[in-house]
């Protein structure tokens, strides 16, 4: 093996996808008829390649060795004398290998053909902008209501409280509040508007006592089944509806 060949082998090495690929390369390089493979020649060149790979200290996948033994086996079978009157049609020892090679070649070509098609996001592109209708749709999706449990209400409550500026929480509210007043107030508002958010009820006065009282009032009303609380999404706005249409 001369030097030029060595370099050639080394360069070609990483483009092979396994032993079948290597064999196809050897067949092409030697301009061999795939249906009539000179098995001795191909086996010799194949083994040279394996030596190359080993010499380069590259990992030799087990499949390459399996193929090597297959080739040697076929070669030895080819050397056996053909019986003069074969009992039944003896299959060419190369047949199975040829079938495998043809199949492999077919799919290599198929892969190449697929790659040449107009590929999405490479050659052809679809509409990617959101249409106004789609923007609308997402909004209405969020408006889809789900009934929430008291637990979820507490979650939401906790979230609201934690969002409030700490300083505001420190302020003392001088307004006198009673639970009954707030309950009456909520029911009164609901009789007018049919639906309220938790934030509506607080009317922007996000002081701790009002929040807690409002919250307790809601819990009481839910317990009494006077109102229903809904949430648009898990962390969405809580909406309160009268339990019974008045």
């Amino acid at each position: 093996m001369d030097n030029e060949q060595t370099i050639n082998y080394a360069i070609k090495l990483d483009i092979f996808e396994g032993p079948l690929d290597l064999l196809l390369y050897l067949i092409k390089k030697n301009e061999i008829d795939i249906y009539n493979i000179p098995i001795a020649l191909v086996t010799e060149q194949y083994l040279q390649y394996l030596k190359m790979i080993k010499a380069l200290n590259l990992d030799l996948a087990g499949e390459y060795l399996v193929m090597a033994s297959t080739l040697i086996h076929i070669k030895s079978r080819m050397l056996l004398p053909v019986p003069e009157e074969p009992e039944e049609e003896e299959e060419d020892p190369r047949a199975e290998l040829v079938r495998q090679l043809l199949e492999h070649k077919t799919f290599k070509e198929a892969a190449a053909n697929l790659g040449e098609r107009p590929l999405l996001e490479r050659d052809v592109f679809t509409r990617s902008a959101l249409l106004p209708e789609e923007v609308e749709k997402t909004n209405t999706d969020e408006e889809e209501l789900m009934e929430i449990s008291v637990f979820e209400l507490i979650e939401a409550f906790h979230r609201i409280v934690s969002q409030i500026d700490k300083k505001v929480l420190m302020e003392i509210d001088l307004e006198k509040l009673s639970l009954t007043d707030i309950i009456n107030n909520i029911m009164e508002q609901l009789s007018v508007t049919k639906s309220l958010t938790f934030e509506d009820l607080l009317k922007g006065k996000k002081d701790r006592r009002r929040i807690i009282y409002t919250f307790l009032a809601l819990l009481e009303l839910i317990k009494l089944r006077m109102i229903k609380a809904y949430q648009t999404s898990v962390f969405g706005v809580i909406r309160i509806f009268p339990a019974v249409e008045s």
Partner: protein
Amino acid sequence: MENIKAVIEALIFASDAPLSLEKICIILSDVEKQEIKEALEKIVLEYNERQSGIYLQEVAGGFQFRTRPELSPWIKKLKSTKPHSLSPAAMETLAIVAYKQPIVKSEIESIRGVDVGAPLKGLLDKKLIRIVGRKDVPGKPIIYGTTRKFLEVFNLKDLLDLPNLRELKELNQQQEIVEQEIVEKTTEDISNL
């Protein structure tokens, strides 16, 4: 309806996936299927005649507007995202799954002559192939098939739209049976969508 063509055009345009004839029929319940078909053909023709920048492509069991392939250099200038490219190993594995599905890993490996674990995983991640089920043989190997996304990405109407394999027919007399099965499978797939 005054302008079926315009409605269909708008529907296909607004749909975020290829829109099937069946779905158009459901939406335009008052219009005959034949009439819808004719309108679709007319739209295809018109966009081609106009030498428009977009065209109506029949893909993945439906219709979708796409930009013309020859204009891709301009679109690439617009888009910063790189197209997903497949390695030769992945591409070959995909071709085998596409043509021989439903297929198990060991069958792919016997064709490729190497382990295909990595390319299979990559193709699953890219949603170009999917697990169809498990084969009822010892070890219950996973059966793979291509997805609708595969058809969309490779601009294919259906699996029959795959280019013919040159030599496979000689190699495999059962090819027709396989194809028949693929047709049945595809019809099923489409109706499951």
